């Protein structure tokens, strides 16, 4: 048991854990994370199964990575707890039981003889220390005086505060992992959706995409209203970077899309027979409509971003209408007059393949589908610990690096009207400036008459 404790109190173990965590984290950035089994097979071949078995494809959520983080947290906790009591003791009980040899053993030390009585030397020293914002404890006898002067002692706890902050952040991560709730709502304009576990609903009043003059997307805006028991509670335009917060549920603009499988298209029909001329018709996916007594049109499929896969099968590369295409069948008097893909961007393409023996041609003039906005909903009780950790970590770093504790120990001894003084200083960081500080104090003492 004690060897186990010793294991976790060792700084070497902490450093080893840090190195292993670093290497593991690097590994996770070299292997793409969270992809499908097929993608790994394609990329790594036979190796894919091994990678998945070792959880290297979900590395940061893997049992072994989380175990490493847990051990790291445990080590951090124990190391910090063990370091605290001596520090608290140092803070609360400044040492005043030292002799000149102890002080001369310190890195920074001075010895001098002052032309002052012990009492006046004491007073002079206190004045100097006070003007330089030191606080001190002292022990005095007839002929001897020891003073322990210190300032900025909070600095000794800087690293402990950083460690505590890291533990808080790790704890926040655990809470997020176990208790956070997330879902995506795909809402059409006017649609109301109940938010699971929240006891209220949200309504999408309107959704719009704003564009820059060059056609690039400027912003997506969803006007959302929170509805609770039939009452409208709060409304907000939710955009990227501007979520809505209601009762710790956050609503983010996350994505958008079109119901292309329910698209409606407008076709322009042309007939070489003069009396028929041009005709515009609207037709929905899956629908069959009569254009006139002899002609019928059916829209089989609509793809917003038409491409062919390796087997020459059409599919949509994305949800963006980059290459809209409609699979249309036209029959005349019950006979197939045209059947094929029409492309909005390439109207001449279908004319190259007209229906056999037909004088009919068609163009895809317009297309539309209802748009929806995807709102990401999250309730993450871990965040409060994360933010507390963030504030603490900065406070701790500021203390550790810039609130440098200074401790100077003085031993004074009355020697026939004069006073012999030995001073020793303790500083772990920025020693150059501390050395100067001590020299200044000694110089000020020498000047006192």
């Amino acid at each position, binding site marked *: 048991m004690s060897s186990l404790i010793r294991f976790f109190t060792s700084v070497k173990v902490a450093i080893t854990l840090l190195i292993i965590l670093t290497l593991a984290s690097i590994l996770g*950035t070299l292997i793409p994370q969270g992809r499908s089994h097929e993608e790994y097979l394609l990329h790594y071949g036979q190796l894919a199964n091994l990678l998945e078995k070792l959880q290297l494809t979900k590395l*940061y959520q893997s049992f072994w990575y989380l175990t490493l983080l847990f051990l790291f947290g445990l080590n951090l906790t124990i190391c910090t707890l063990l370091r605290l009591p001596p520090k608290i003791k140092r803070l609360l009980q400044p040492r005043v039981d030292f002799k000149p040899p102890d002080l001369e053993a310190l890195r920074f030390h001075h010895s001098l003889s002052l032309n002052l009585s012990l009492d006046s030397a004491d007073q002079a020293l206190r004045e100097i220390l006070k003007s330089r914002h030191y606080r001190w404890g002292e022990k005095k006898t007839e002929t001897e005086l020891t003073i322990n002067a210190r300032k900025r002692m909070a600095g000794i706890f800087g690293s402990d505060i950083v460690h505590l902050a890291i533990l808080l952040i790790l704890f926040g991560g655990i809470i997020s992992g176990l208790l956070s709730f997330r879902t995506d709502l795909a809402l059409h304009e006017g649609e109301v959706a109940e938010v699971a576990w929240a006891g209220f609903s949200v309504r999408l009043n309107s959704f719009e995409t704003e564009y820059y003059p060059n056609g690039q997307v400027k912003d997506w805006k969803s006007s959302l209203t929170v509805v609770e028991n039939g009452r409208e509670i709060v409304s907000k335009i939710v955009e990227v970077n501007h979520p809505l917060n209601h009762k710790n549920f956050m609503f983010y603009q996350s994505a958008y899309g079109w119901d292309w499988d329910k698209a409606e298209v407008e076709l322009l029909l042309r007939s070489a027979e003069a009396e028929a001329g041009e005709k515009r018709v609207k037709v929905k996916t899956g629908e069959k409509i009569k254009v006139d007594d002899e002609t019928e049109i059916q829209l089989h499929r609509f793809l917003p971003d038409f491409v062919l896969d390796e087997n020459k099968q059409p599919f949509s590369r994305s949800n963006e209408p980059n290459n809209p295409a409609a699979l249309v069948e036209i029959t005349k008097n019950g006979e197939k007059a045209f059947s094929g893909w029409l492309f909005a961007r390439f109207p001449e393409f279908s004319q190259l393949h007209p229906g056999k023996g037909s004088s009919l041609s068609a163009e895809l003039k317009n297309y539309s589908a209802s748009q929806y906005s995807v709102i990401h909903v999250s309730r993450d009780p871990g965040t409060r610990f994360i933010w507390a950790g963030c504030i603490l970590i900065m406070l701790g*770093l500021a203390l550790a690096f810039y609130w440098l504790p200074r401790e100077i120990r003085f031993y004074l001894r009355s020697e026939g009207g004069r006073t012999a003084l030995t001073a020793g200083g303790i500083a772990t960081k920025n020693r150059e400036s501390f050395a100067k500080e001590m020299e200044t104090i000694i110089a000020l003492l020498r000047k006192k008459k």
Partner: protein
Amino acid sequence: MKEATLFPLAFLLYILAAFFYFASHFSRREKLAKSGSAVALVGFLVHNLALILRTIETGHAPFTNMYESLSFFAWSTVLAMVIAERVFRFYRLSAYLMLIVIALMALASSPLMPKEAMPLVPALQSYWLWLHVSVTLLGEAFFAIAFVASILYLLALRKEKAGEKISNSLNPEKLDSLSYRAVAIGFPLFTLGGLVFGMVWANVAWGRYWSWDPKEVWSLITWFVFALYLHTRIVMGWKGRRSAWIAILGFLAALFTYFGVNYLLSGLHSYA
């Protein structure tokens, strides 16, 4: 005046400053280093103006594509150098830092980097863009100082071993301490800008503070390396050679976070 004319002017001034700094080394005349410092400062002011004009021209923060980002990183490095020169009263690092700045400026000027300003994508329209990027890059600029100090430290050690006389400006102990002091500035800045502001912004923009995106992981790795630097130094008393190597690795990790992730790994941060 336009950014497109001021940027090359700043670049030229940096080259001139580097020339002075190196001339000072080889002639061992401190005065030349001070001239270099003055020229670098003028270059820095011109660069300031260039960044301000860029901000006015584009209407957004001057670090939203790789050209702007490189220019801003160079600017941060000069800022860190100007601060370091005044705090540490030490000019020997500046010549080598100027080489890094010149490399960044040259890369930014290269035809590989498209210079035209694009309007901001929705995810970047936030004041967190200013805070997150500027503080992080300033932190990384101080890591660059630690990097240069550590390399010079290793070189000085090698010279010492070879029995050569070492000039005062290459005192190993001083270089080791400078490296630490640069990390002591860079580490809190990097923590604040990269990790804290990054998490806050990610939570606002993406709805989660941490997504294990490669850029996030690499900034964590960079942070781990400097945490190692501090702990091995303070707790285990590793000074000198081993410490210098960790600082070098740390800066390389920071550089990879900044640069390599964008080109070699894909993820949420692929804006530039």
